[in-house]
C-alpha cells in the first residue's frame, strides 16, 4: 500500500473525527445551542447534521482525488497473498 495514501487517510480521518466529536459533544452537553437558528430560520441541529453528511462526502472526494497509485507492494508479494 502507498504510504502517503495511508497518511492522507489518517489526516482526513482526524479532521472528520474532530467535526463529528464536536457535534456529538455539543448535542450531549449543550443541547440548547442546537436550538438556535443562525441561517434562514433553520436550527443549528439540522444545519450541522447536513453539514456532517455533506462534509463526509467532500472529504471522501478529496481522498479519491489526492490518493496516489496503489502499488508500493511488489506484484510478486501480491500474488503470494492471493
Amino acid at each position, binding site marked *: *500500500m502507498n504510504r502517503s495514501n495511508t497518511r492522507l487517510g489518517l489526516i482526513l480521518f482526524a479532521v472528520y473525527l474532530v467535526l463529528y466529536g464536536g457535534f456529538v459533544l455539543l448535542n450531549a452537553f449543550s443541547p440548547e445551542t442546537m436550538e438556535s437558528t443562525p441561517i434562514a430560520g*433553520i436550527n443549528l441541529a439540522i444545519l450541522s447534521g*447536513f453539514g456532517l453528511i455533506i462534509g*463526509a*462526502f467532500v*472529504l471522501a472526494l478529496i*481522498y479519491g482525488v489526492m490518493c496516489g497509485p496503489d502499488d508500493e507492494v511488489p506484484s510478486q508479494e501480491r500474488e503470494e497473498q492471493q
Partner: protein
Amino acid sequence: MIYHPSTLAVAIFLMFVGVVLGLSFYLGRKAKSSEGYFAAHGQIPWFVNGVAFAGDYLSAASFLGICGMIAFYGYDGFLYSIGFLGGWVVALFVVAEPMKRLGKFTFADALNSKFNSKGIQFVAGVSTLVVSVFYLIPQMVGAGVLVQPLLGLPHWAGVLIVGAVVIFIVVTAGMVSTTWVQFLKGSLLVAFSAVLTVMILQRGFEVQSEPPQPQTLTELADGSEIVNGLPKGEGEGEATLASVGTISKLPDGKAKTGPLGPLEFFSTLQESEVVLWSKETATDTDGSTTTTYTPKPTPGSQILRPGENPKFKGIRSDKYSDKLNFLSLMLALFCGTASLPHILIRYYTVKDGAAARKSTIVGIGCIGFFYVLTLYLGLGAMTSGAMDVSSSNMAAPLLARSMSELLFAIISAIAFTTVLGTVSGLILASAGAVAHDLYGCLSSRELTGTEQVRIAKIASVAVGIVAIILGMKFQKLNVGYLVGWAFSVAASANLPSLVMLLFWKGTTKQGIIAAVTVGMTSSLAWILLSADTYSAVYGWDGKDALTPFSQPGIVTIPLGFLTLVVVSLLTKKRA
C-alpha cells in the same frame, strides 16, 4: 382503517420479488467456485459495487427505522443517519485498502494474514456469525412489519416469507447475484426516496381542523384486542386505531402552505405546531394490558431539536451519567460500520485497492444523499395524517400510501427487496464465516472449494432459521434501535483488532484472540442485561436491569482496545 391489502400493491410486490429471485437464480448459475460464491471472482465493477454498498447498508433500519423514529419524535432519529454515515469515514480512510490487501474471502482472513493462527480464525469466525445474526434480527422484524399492511398478513408470516426467500437466494446464488440485487435495490431505494421527498415538498403542510382524540388499545389475556372499547376489526360494531400525524398550527395562522422549498420546509415547521402522541401502558389484574395514546401538540422548534425521544432525553438532564447512553450510541455508530462483516466482505468483490476506494466513495455519495432525505421523509410522515400510532416502523410505507396507492406498492416492494438484499448479504457473510473460518479451522485437512460452498449453503439454511425465530421474538423494538446494538457488538468485537493490527506492530495473536472474545462477550452480555431488553424482550421491569444504561459501546469498545494492548504486552516475548 390503516391496513388493507390492495390487488395492485400485491401484484407489484410479487413482480418485484419475482424479478429479484429470477435475477439471482440466473446469475447464481455462473458462480460455481468458492471464489465466485464468496467474492464474485473479484470482478464486480467499482461503480456497481459502490451502489451495492449503499444497497447493503441502507437496510430496513435506515428506511423503516430512522424514518419511523423521526416521524414519532422528530430530530433524534436523524442522529442515527449522521452516525451511520460517519462510520463510513472510518471505513474509507482507515480500513478499506488494508482490508483489500490483506484478505481473500472473509474478515477473519484479514485479521489472520500476519499470524496464520487457527485461534484467530476461530474467534473472528464466531464474531462474524454473532454480529451478522444480531444485524439480521432488525431486518427480519422489518420484513414482518412490511408484509402486514401490504398483504394483510400477520407479522410472523412476513418474517417467515423473508426467511424462506432469502435462504433460497443464498443457496442458489452467492456473491455475484447478491451484489447485483443490492445494486438494483440501492439505486431504486435512493431514487424513489427522492421522488417521495419531492412529493412531500410539493404537498406542503396543512392544518387539521378537528383535534384528534385519545385512543386506547387493550390486549386481553386470551390474545384478542379491544380498540377504544370495541373489538378490533373492520366490520360493524368493531374498531381499528385511527391513523395519526397532523399539524395543529401553521405560522401566521395559515391553514395551508402550498408547495415548499427544501429549506423553507424546515423553517416553516420550526414555527408550526405538530400533534405528537404519548403512550402509556398499564397492566390490569386480569392479565390484560391497556395502552393509551394521548395527543400532545408540540411546537415545531421542539421537534427539530435533539433530545425528545425517550431514549435520548438523557442529554437534557443535568447529570453527566444520563448522557452516557447517547455518547455510547454515537460512538458505536461511528465505529460500527468499519467492523460489519457483511460490509467488509464487499471489499473482496472488486479487483484492487483503488477500486475498493472508488466504490466506497460512490457508496458514501449514495448513502449520504439518502440520509439527507430521511429527515424529509420522517418529518413528511409525521405530518402525513397516515401514521399508525402503534408502530413507528411503518411510517415510511404509510407516508407513501398517503401520496398514492401505486407509490405505496412500489415503496413497499423496494423496502421488502431491501430486506431481502441485506438479509442475503448477512447470511452470506455468516455462511462464509462458518465454511471458511470455523469449519476450515476445526477440520484437520484443507477443504476443497466445492466442499466449502456446500458447507456454506447448509450454514445459510441454519442461520436463516435462527434469524426467523429471533425476528419473531424481537418484533416490538424499533428496527433502527436494534441496529444500534448490532453496531455496538461489531465495533466492540472487531474494531480494536482491526485497527491495532494495522497500526501497532506490538499486536500479538493472543492479543487479537483476547480482544475479539472480550469485546464480543462483554457487549453481548451488556445488551442482554440492559433495561431495554428487560422490558421489550423478556417482559420484565426495566428498572431491575443490571447495566446502568442500554448502549454498551462506550464501555466495551475501549475495553476491547485495552484487552488487546494488555494481552499483547504480556505475550510479547513468546509471540
